[in-house]
């Protein structure tokens, strides 16, 4: 447990009659991709929101870098090095792709924000942003207005902004959603390398990607983790086959 970068301990969250998280205990270890799968409405995004600080759990703790961060704001957790990508893109749509990435670099740098000097003239920030865009495969779109990007490209930009933060852990909510098979194959290759920089908690519906990437897999059903293990273990697990994978088979 102590070696985990990120962990949840018995997290519970209720929305009226719905228990979106039901005693969720899980962890993310250095160098790994830990995938969370589960049917629609299983509580994956809710779990992520509690890990990153957007939602407060009714009970349980979130631990990041050995520290209990349950009471910290999203902003403080981000400053500690927790980078999140959203299922529904949360980007500055009127701004350019580059500006969105620069915003990430700006946040990562910290300190007070200047009022006079143009932000795009700051070579350090610009280089950081361009580097992240390049890695995420968006270098050619730096000057495009974000609202003009396709859904898949927006997901790529979400990842690029997360990269600019140079985080200690990534938390990604369906980064492949809306991407074509070619795009998701490329992102799969990219995430595969990325895990060496920082571990990734990956919520994803694209099973090819999940099976290709996950060191460990957790299956979430009705807010409960019904199984955690390697891809082979999960595939062999009868409960999972009935509750989840069975739907596909």
């Amino acid at each position, binding site marked *: 447990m102590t070696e985990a970068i990120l962990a949840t301990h018995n997290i519970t969250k209720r929305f009226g009659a719905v228990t979106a998280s039901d005693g969720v205990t899980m962890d993310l270890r250095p160098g790994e991709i830990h995938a969370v799968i589960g049917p629609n409405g299983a509580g994956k995004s809710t779990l992520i929101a509690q890990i990153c*600080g957007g939602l407060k759990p009714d009970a349980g703790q979130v631990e990041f870098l050995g520290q209990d961060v349950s009471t910290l704001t999203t902003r403080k957790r981000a400053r500690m090095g927790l980078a999140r990508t959203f299922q529904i893109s949360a980007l500055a749509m009127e701004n350019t792709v580059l500006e969105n990435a620069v915003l990430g670099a700006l*946040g990562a740098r910290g300190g007070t924000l200047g009022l006079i000097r143009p932000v795009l003239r700051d070579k350090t920030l610009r280089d950081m942003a361009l580097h992240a865009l390049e890695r995420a495969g968006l270098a050619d779109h730096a000057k495009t207005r974000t609202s003009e990007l396709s859904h898949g490209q927006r997901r790529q930009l979400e990842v690029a*902004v997360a990269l600019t933060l140079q985080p200690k852990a990534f938390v990604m909510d369906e980064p492949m959603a809306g991407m074509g098979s070619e795009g998701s194959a490329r992102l799969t290759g990219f995430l595969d390398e990325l895990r060496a920089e920082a571990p990734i908690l990956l919520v994803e519906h694209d099973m090819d990607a999940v099976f290709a990437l996950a060191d460990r897999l957790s299956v979430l059903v009705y807010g409960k983790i019904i199984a955690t293990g390697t891809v082979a273990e999960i595939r062999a697990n009868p409960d999972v086959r009935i509750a989840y994978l069975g739907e596909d088979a």
Partner: protein
Amino acid sequence: MSRETILNAVIFGGLLAVPLWACIVDEPFTITLATKVAILALAGVGLNIALGLGGLVSLGHAAFFGLGGYAMGILASHAQSYTPLMESPLLIEGTKSMPIIWLMALITSALAALAIGALSLRTSGVYFIMITLAFGQMFYYLSISWPAYGGEDGLSIYVRNGFPGLNTLDPIQFFAICFALLALALWLNARLIRSPFGLALGAARQSPQRVETVGLSPFRLRLAAFVISGAITGLAGALFADLNRFVSPTMFSWQTSGEIMIFVILGGVGRLYGPVAGAALFITLEHVLGGLSEFWHIYLGLLLLLVVLFARGGLIGLIAGREVHHD
């Protein structure tokens, strides 16, 4: 050069040329109208930083406009009656010096914006509009019920305040002062939009979640924007009081907040020269339509409705099209 840049240059040049021409043909009233446009545009530039860049729909900017006005009124009235504002613990005397008055107007309205913002920015949407409106009204009633500074009747200043090296009683020289301050505010606003702060503030308007996720605080960004915004509108208030040589609670009224917002909406929310175009259009309409009919506000209302429904970018958007992105 984009169409908007050209349009901005035309507006800037126009606002400068009209009073210069009026000066040559000796039409002081036209100069006064142009001065009014410059001052009200300045108030609008202030609001536009909160409204356009920050997405903060403040219906309480009269509070800052009025505070600027009263900063001028109080300092100047003490100077003209030779009575200090305060004797202990330290002696504070009145003044007729514009730079000192401006500084006081900037400081008081910035502090008020800090306090009002710190409380009201915890809400959003309609609640934010209502709370800022309530704060504005608070200042309005305070000014009415404070007899020391004229109460309901307001305060008259006999001679316009001075600026070193200039004769402020000369309409064109006073216009030059107001125009220079407007130009300065526009320059600041243009820089702000492209600055790190401007980028983060604009992002916080579009997606507060995104801004938090990169480790920045939307609340602090908005509060800083609100303070800068309030301070600029406060400075405009001091100039407006100087133009009229008169301050009254009307400057604090919700109609004043509404008018400042109308300049911004007419001209184009978030467009750099929106408030200038809006204030110029407003004053022209007031002058032209006001001469034709007492009910010119009805036509203004209709125009406003058309702009809101069909020209989201206001006058600037109508002529220059959608905003083009820099760099």
